[in-house]
């Protein structure tokens, strides 16, 4: 590529990057701005830098506790989803049993019943079980995932049958084969799904919003953020809170970018 053309592309790419990142830039500027000076300030640079927005957001929004709770819930959901998906995927990939096709359809059918549709009756269930403001209430409805089952089943189907036959001859039981061979061989797919599941669980809003009644003691990070935006505060406080809330997933994105990409594109591109 000629230098001129390369330069043109770099220019375009930089412009696009600025547009994509601009909202984040404004967010950061506002988070460290002195809100009482806001009406005279330009918007590009902070007038009067103040970092106490972060400490105020942390305290007033109970962000410390919220982060811990979010992490517990997220790890819980991810672990359960991966476990149930791996087990079910194994059954669909390697085992023969009656009604296999129907059951697989049943699994896929759950994709048609997202939480947004079943919200009201599920809340009724939560009330009957007394699971409002509880970890089990936040975790159990998401303990299984059809998407994960599908993805990991694809991965299992890719395992060469010679390995399966050899294991059979050696006398490995299904569980042993699963743990010693199937899972390690499909680690990339499982890792991808884990990361996607993790991100989805951490960023949940609707369900926690619906079942958390004692926000002070049970809010996850996303709900704590809502608490901050509906209090009459100086405007830098909820914004600083949003920055704090974004940090964990940004870290995940940086560490696991490749897995995330693979997981997101798994359904899109064959192979």
């Amino acid at each position, binding site marked *: *590529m000629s230098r001129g053309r390369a330069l043109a*592309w*770099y220019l*375009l*790419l930089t412009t696009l990057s600025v547009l*994509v*990142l601009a*909202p*984040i830039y*404004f*967010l950061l500027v*506002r988070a460290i701005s002195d*809100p009482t000076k806001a009406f005279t300030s330009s*918007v590009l640079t902070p007038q009067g830098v103040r970092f106490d927005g972060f400490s105020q957001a942390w305290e007033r929004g109970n962000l410390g506790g919220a982060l811990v709770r979010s992490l517990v819930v997220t790890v819980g959901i991810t672990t359960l989803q991966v476990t*149930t998906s791996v*087990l079910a995927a*194994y059954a*669909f990939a390697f*085992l023969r*049993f*009656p009604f296999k096709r129907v*059951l697989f359809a049943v*699994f896929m*059918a759950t994709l048609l*019943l*997202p939480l*947004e*549709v*079943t919200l*009201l*009756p599920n809340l*009724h*269930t939560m009330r009957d079980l007394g699971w409002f403001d509880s970890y089990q209430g936040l975790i*159990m*409805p998401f*303990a*299984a995932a059809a998407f994960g089952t599908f993805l990991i089943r694809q991965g299992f189907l890719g395992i060469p049958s010679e390995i399966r036959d050899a294991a059979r001859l050696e006398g490995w039981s*299904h569980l042993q084969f699963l743990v010693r061979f199937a899972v390690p061989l499909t680690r990339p797919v499982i890792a991808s799904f884990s990361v996607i599941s993790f*991100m989805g669980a951490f*960023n949940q*809003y*609707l369900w926690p*919003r*619906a079942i958390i009644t004692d926000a002070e003691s049970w809010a996850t990070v996303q709900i704590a*953020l809502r608490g901050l*935006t509906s209090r009459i505060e100086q405007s830098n406080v909820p*914004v600083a*809170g*949003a920055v704090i*809330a*974004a940090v964990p*997933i940004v870290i995940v*994105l940086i560490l696991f970018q490749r897995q*995330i990409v693979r997981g*997101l*594109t798994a*359904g*899109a*591109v064959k*192979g």
Partner: protein
Amino acid sequence: MIARQEATVSDSGRLREALTALAFIAPSLVVFWAFSFYPFQQLILRGLYRNNASGTNLRWVGWEQYGDVLAGNEFRDGLWHSMQFVLFTVPAGLVLGTVLAVAANRRLRGIKVFQTIFSSTIATSTAVASVVFLVLINQQIGVYQGGVPGFGSQAILENPSTAMFGVSLSAIWQNLGLSFVIVLAGLQAIPQEVEEAATLDGYGPVRRFFRITLPMISPVLLFLVVVLVIFALQAFAPIELLTSGGPARSTETLVYKIFERQTPDLLGEGAVLSVGLFGVTFLVTLGQFLLLERRVHYGS
């Protein structure tokens, strides 16, 4: 090979295998039954009843309630607002995602940096993205406090004609990362020889894009459309955080209306709205399957 293997398994072996399968599937099935299928059935039933505000007068009203609600204002408005959200976010996601992906799909030094930047909005949750746009277009503290030119002088989020658009902006931005990643994967799957052959045949870059590239990534684009439509139909957080359904209920999507109907006197209506939402989602997914299957048969 496995089939040949299994053909020699005895009956008790078959039983054991079936039981193992049951054990492996059971955990997922229990969760699905408890939190997807059982609630769905309860949903349909609840739509046939009405109650008072204190929950002490649950009574049968029959399919009439389905008829009333689905033909009524609430469903129509909710559906329209949800559709507006879809119309704002999906084409934008397609176009912007493709633009970013095409720009970043080339061999340049440091291209990885740009790819990371373009995918960065994946890291934002809907709550964070909503706060980001609070800072941008909130009429008191936003960077831009005006309205949309041509739609009156009201601020974007306070004008019933433009509020839905304002809320969509947050979703459009948040979807950039996802759209980019998916379209890029599609572009990267195009064999180089195809591009080279087209260039050799004298196709200019624009023609190449529309005649060769676009058709080849159309399955990926279709997948992206479905994902974005599903996301749009499920949107809740941006609405609650930016406008709480207002102004003048102009941003109350179906999901928002459902969420607002948790009290016993509104549960019947909420249940019917939920079934309506299911119907819409089902039709969309059905449409996707049909289109995709056709593509596979007759397409590239």
